[in-house]
């Protein structure tokens, strides 16, 4: 009989102690703790270093990067090189997998420590970096490798196989812009 209610009293003592105890809450918008090393925030691009190789666009699993490419003689060497005139990263699709960062040959795309990606409209999350804005709603179709051609031909039938054969001479000059 004497131990009836002792557990309850003990527990209520603990809660009473906590009631006046020091709070451990970190109030987030006012207090921001340091992010861990190698944390993946929102992506950013250093456009001066970008060589418009389109590797990030190809490897992106979510198709969140689209690049509009032209040839331009940017460094005055007299020889036009690929130049990214439009560059958009759509944060509403990005899943922070960091594949583009790994694949970039000149380390011009990298994570920042920004992580508060919020907007009233999904299109506001698409951040433009180039001189000319790129429409982020159009799915950037990275050039498909043509290795599985035979397998695809047997599966799809003859019709899709023949169509590209006729078209290429007409469309070939326009395919400089990959967006």
């Amino acid at each position, binding site marked *: 009989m004497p131990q009836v209610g002792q557990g309850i009293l003990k527990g209520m003592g603990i809660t009473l102690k906590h009631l006046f105890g020091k709070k*451990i809450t970190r109030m987030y918008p006012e207090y921001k703790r340091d992010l861990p090393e190698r944390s993946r925030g929102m992506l950013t691009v250093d456009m001066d270093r970008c060589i418009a190789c389109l590797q990030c666009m190809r490897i992106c699993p979510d198709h969140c990067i689209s690049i509009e490419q032209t040839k331009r003689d940017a460094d005055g060497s007299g020889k036009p090189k690929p130049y990214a005139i439009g560059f958009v990263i759509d944060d509403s699709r990005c899943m922070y997998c960091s594949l583009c960062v790994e694949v970039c040959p000149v380390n011009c795309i990298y994570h920042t420590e920004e992580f508060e990606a919020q907007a009233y409209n999904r299109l506001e999350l698409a951040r433009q970096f180039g001189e000319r804005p790129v429409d982020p709603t159009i799915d950037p179709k990275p050039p498909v490798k043509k290795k599985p051609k035979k397998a695809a031909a047997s599966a799809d039938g003859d019709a899709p196989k023949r169509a590209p054969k006729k078209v290429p001479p007409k469309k070939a000059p326009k395919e400089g812009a990959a967006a």
Partner: protein
Amino acid sequence: MQTVLNLLEMEPIRFFISFGAILFLVLNLAAILTMAERKTAGYIQLRYGPNRVGPRGLLQPAADVFKLFTKENVSPGRADLWIFLGAPIAMFIPAAAVWMVIPFAPNAVVANLNIGILFFVAVTSIGALGVIMAGYGSHSTFSLLGALRGAAQMISYEVPLILSLLGVIMLTGSLSFVDVVNSQGPNFWGWYFLPQLPMALTFYIAGLAEVKRVPFDLPEGESEIVGGFMVEYSGMTWALIQASEFASMGLMASINVTLFFGGWQPPLEFLDLGNFNWIWFGLKTALIMFTFQWIRWSVPRLRMDQLMDLGWKILVPITLVWLFVTAGAMLVF
């Protein structure tokens, strides 16, 4: 000035004013108690609780009410709409109406009924009807389960609740709350919680079960039957159920204070504040309400059989024994 006061004393005007005052008190009490509940929960769990809206989060209830008013009131397709929508009203009216008979200060009581305690017992038990209506009208499994538990719990805890009032009634010789408070005297050793300690404890525990607070919140049972009888409610109907829960919690605390802790009587005679004695009433009620919240965030929920054991095998015998002790003492002295 005197004529204006006399005008206020006239019957229809007095009725409407006290009606408005009681409604104002109850609704604001519900809003403040939700805030206090969340703050207490936060502080006990080493958090701060809501602190974004207004200074130190004090405008949170206003934001909550605004949100709930703008929400859609969804009702299940197969619900019985009359019962479904009538249930929050059937819960709120008893919780608000009993405030009429509580004396807040020496002359501040809306209706000095000579059967005040009987009125309290009769009207609060209507609250169980609201719970049953909510569960039955929703046409939902969890709701019905919660309502059945609620009915079983509230009806079986009425018994120790009423039995624990009998000692006070015997000592006072009256069923009026005003007489009970007056007979307790302005010193804390004259209050009834000392001679009636087992009764006061029983009333406290049974009251806790009667207002469905946490160790006895089986009708709600958040972790097992989601929200119990109020699972299907949303928007303002849900808010009304919450308001009636908090109003009945405040009511139970104030009845506790009135019957066992001296009502508006000051703890020591020289602290008498005259007409401002409602401050003592408010302080004591707030303390009791705080203990309700403190228990809520410290104690786990009882099982159904433990609940019934506590009610029928412990509380009822204690009250019966102490009833005879009180009667014997009154016969001897």
